[in-house]
């Protein structure tokens, strides 16, 4: 691999040939604002916020996400010219964007909001006609508010390039462009598989996880990184918790699942607070369950196990462990049967 050295904001850096200026800058810890860039998606070069000034190029301000480094290149990521152009781009986006941050689900994690703050964009010099669309809330998990969409295209790309579904794409041209399903139907009537990757990618509030709506914004929740309780891929995810309740699931990017989740991992947590949850031990009497204390229930189990072992031997007892509980619990379960009961009759449903 060949290496190229260049100067970014007065600092020398050496990176592999083919690296983009954006990546090279990140290597130096220089953060260039982006709305449409993601390192696992194809380069779109759509938002143009990552433009930089390259010495010797008097033609234009190239987008650093799509600009390969070149030997001896001198780049300015934050010059007055660049800042002014970024400001105008933000103003253009803002001119076509509802300013309802007060009630927006994305408040606090919205990148448009963040950059407007950073660049001191209070209002747009270019306000005028705005696009109007009805909110699509027919889908059980994903709500789409296209008026908030800034057309970064990340949802389109993740759906196509990662999920391989392609439920959405651009439709219309020019100022009337929008992201739509085939024939502009509701997302609920599309091939969408509800993975919610698009929500995760959305830099603004255009895509919302419906079950999380109104239950707490990003800065209000505690994120607990854990392992998904569904299939054997063991995806890492973050349970978003507010007031001792799970209110949503967000991605954990640096993980073996690359941050991606499926519908069950992202949305399948409601059972935790299902009203039918067992909240107390039950003992069956005359064919009917009654509530019992732990003390009573465990005494009964211990007594019965002891009786049966005494009468029929340890092998008259058996245990079925679970592929859903933790390693520690499986370990203790087999230890219980082997060390306490004295039988190897322990198995679990590995094969189902």
């Amino acid at each position, binding site marked *: 691999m060949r290496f190229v050295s260049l100067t970014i904001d007065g600092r020398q850096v050496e990176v592999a040939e083919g690296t983009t200026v954006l990546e090279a800058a990140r290597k130096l810890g220089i953060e260039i604002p982006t709305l449409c860039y993601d390192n696992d998606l194809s380069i779109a070069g759509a938002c143009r916020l990552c433009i930089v000034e390259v010495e010797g190029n008097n033609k234009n301000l190239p987008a650093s996400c799509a600009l390969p480094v070149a030997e001896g290149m001198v780049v300015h990521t934050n010059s007055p010219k660049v800042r*002014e152009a970024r400001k105008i781009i933000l103003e253009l986006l803002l001119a076509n964007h509802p300013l309802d941050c007060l009630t927006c689900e994305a408040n606090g994690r919205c990148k448009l909001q963040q950059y407007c703050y950073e660049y001191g964009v209070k209002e747009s010099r270019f306000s005028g006609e705005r696009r109007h669309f009805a909110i699509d809330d027919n889908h059980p998990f994903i709500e789409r508010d296209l008026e908030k969409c800034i057309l970064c295209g990340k949802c389109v790309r993740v759906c196509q390039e990662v999920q391989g579904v392609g439920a959405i794409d651009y439709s219309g041209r*020019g100022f009337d462009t929008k992201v739509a399903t085939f024939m502009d139907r509701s997302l609920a009537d599309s091939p969408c598989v509800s993975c919610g990757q698009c929500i995760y990618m959305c830099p603004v509030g255009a895509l919302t996880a419906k079950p999380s709506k109104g239950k707490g914004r990003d800065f209000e929740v505690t994120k607990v990184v854990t392992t998904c309780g569904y299939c054997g891929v063991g995806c890492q995810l973050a349970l978003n918790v507010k007031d001792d309740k799970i209110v949503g699931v967000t991605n954990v990017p640096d993980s073996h699942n690359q941050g991606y989740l499926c519908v069950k991992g992202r949305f399948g947590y409601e059972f935790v607070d299902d009203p039918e949850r067992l909240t107390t031990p039950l003992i069956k009497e005359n064919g009917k369950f009654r509530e019992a204390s732990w003390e009573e229930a465990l005494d009964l189990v211990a007594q019965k196990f002891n009786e049966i072992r005494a009468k029929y031997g340890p092998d008259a007892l058996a245990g079925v462990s679970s592929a859903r509980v933790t390693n520690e619990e499986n370990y203790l379960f087999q230890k219980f049967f082997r060390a306490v009961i004295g039988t190897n009759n322990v198995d679990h449903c590995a094969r189902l």
Partner: protein
Amino acid sequence: MSTLKKINNFVELRQLREQLKKNYQESLSNEIKIIVGMGTCGIAAGANDVMKAIIDELQRRNINATVMQTGCIGMCAQEPIVEIIRPGEKRVTYGRISPADAKRLIEEHVLQGRIVEDLVVATFEEGHPDETNFYKQQRLVLRNCGHIDPEKIEDYIARDGYMALARVLEQMTPEEVIEEIKASGLRGRGGAGFLTGLKWSFAAKAPGDKKYVICNADEGDPGAFMDRSIMEGDPHSVLEGMLIGAYAIGADEGYIYVRAEYPLAIKRLRTALAQAEEMGLIGKNILGTDFSFTLHIKEGAGAFVCGEETALIASIEGKRGMPRPRPPFPATSGLWGKPTNINNVETWANVPIIIRNGAEWYASIGTETSKGTKVFALTGKVKNTGLVEVPMGITLREIIFDIGGGILKDKKFKAVQIGGPSGGCLPEEKLDLPVDYESLTRAGAIMGSGGLVVMDQNTCMVDVAKFFLNFTRAESCGKCTPCREGIQRMREILQNICKGKGTLEDLDRLETLANTIKDTALCGLGQTAPNPVLTTLRYFREEYEAHIRDKRCPAGICQDLLTYFIQPELCRGCTACVRVCPVGAISGEVRKPHVIDPEKCIKCGSCKETCRFSAIAVK
């Protein structure tokens, strides 16, 4: 149609050419030829009826003459055009021929040999058409247009068609071909003017077994039709150019991406392709060599942005036609990810003649940096609208006044928009600008694909800028922020100015925004879309200021800024205007001067048109 025989080698091709040439010469000396311009321009003007009238008349009178169709001759304003050549006599071009005129031509010229002077556009000696046809033109690319039947490969071969292909396959290595094109100085005729030979060398050097050549025939500029005319009038020149290019870069497959709005061009391309395939000029082991090439014609849906290389490739691949960032350039990763070379129709059509006549000859035409000729579509308020092919370096004045015949109704020239919606509007003081890539760019315009829209004194430049923004706003692909959102906002500012609601600060805002879009947009469409705004601001700023400061449109176009009033000294009180006014804004007693209520007036202009006494004025 005659059955075509496969040509197996170079000798057979040359023999065939000699035979066809001989046939043509013989036909000239013993047949009367009647040629009808059957390009889209001719057909739109009624050439089908003229053709039919001619055939009927010949039949009725039992006259033996060859009737031939040809593509656009270039004098679109004169369509339908009919040319008549009697053995040994001059070629006479007649313009604006009606079916009735056609009968006259047969009666007088064909039968009696008497030229119908009042219908003549031009006459010239056969064999030297290029010097005399349209003053100051130099027709290289259009050399065959008007001289061959585009649906007959024999006509093309008779005029040395496919001899360039034979030359490269027989005598040149791919590298030599690229060097030849480089040496000719040919630059891309689609817009940016990149050196064609250099571009080819990139695709040639790119690693990969599979490579493609593409012909960009997605001619999208409003008012530009040179590519269509070439495809309609001389399709084989495009095919031959692509074959040579494919050989040079090592491609074995090609696409012509042509907009579906060009049905005649598509038909003629398909015919040409079928003929070339039948004769073995396209296909496996062409002319007995190892070189093979297949060609597909892909119809595009007519999105302007699909003229952009990467959007065009996406469209061929069946995706939405949206540009993507470059690099990677198509030369390394193009169609289906393979090295791909794209040139437009006019560029490809230049290739055979360069190979035939040599790079040195070609490079002798034009200027230091812009070689050869350029075809322009001359439209707008000019007397001779049509296609003109001129050597690079000619001045705008020569094109507009010498070739175009000056401004319609001899009004005053105001501006010329060059390069389509992405081009710029140049004022009178730029008329002596030599037409070459660099001069135009310096002046704020671009060569583009070669649209020239001439505007007279009655044109409002703010309105013109707005017009082009309407176009680019609708044709933007919507991908990048500056283009999608920015054009809309520029347009809104212009709309306000045209309504008299603009401020001087708006001009600064407009200029800042225009420059930002130019600097930051993703593709050429966005980067050049502000050009009409920037050039009109640069050359016609006072006109903007008049709209803003004086609430006045100097050209009298912006309706919101106009006031209609009746000049009492001229008004006879005939009440004609009262009757046509759709909103009842005019009142007055009969035979006494009337008045217009400015509150009610919707400025439709009906009264002004109706008034026989020119009593209604606008200010």
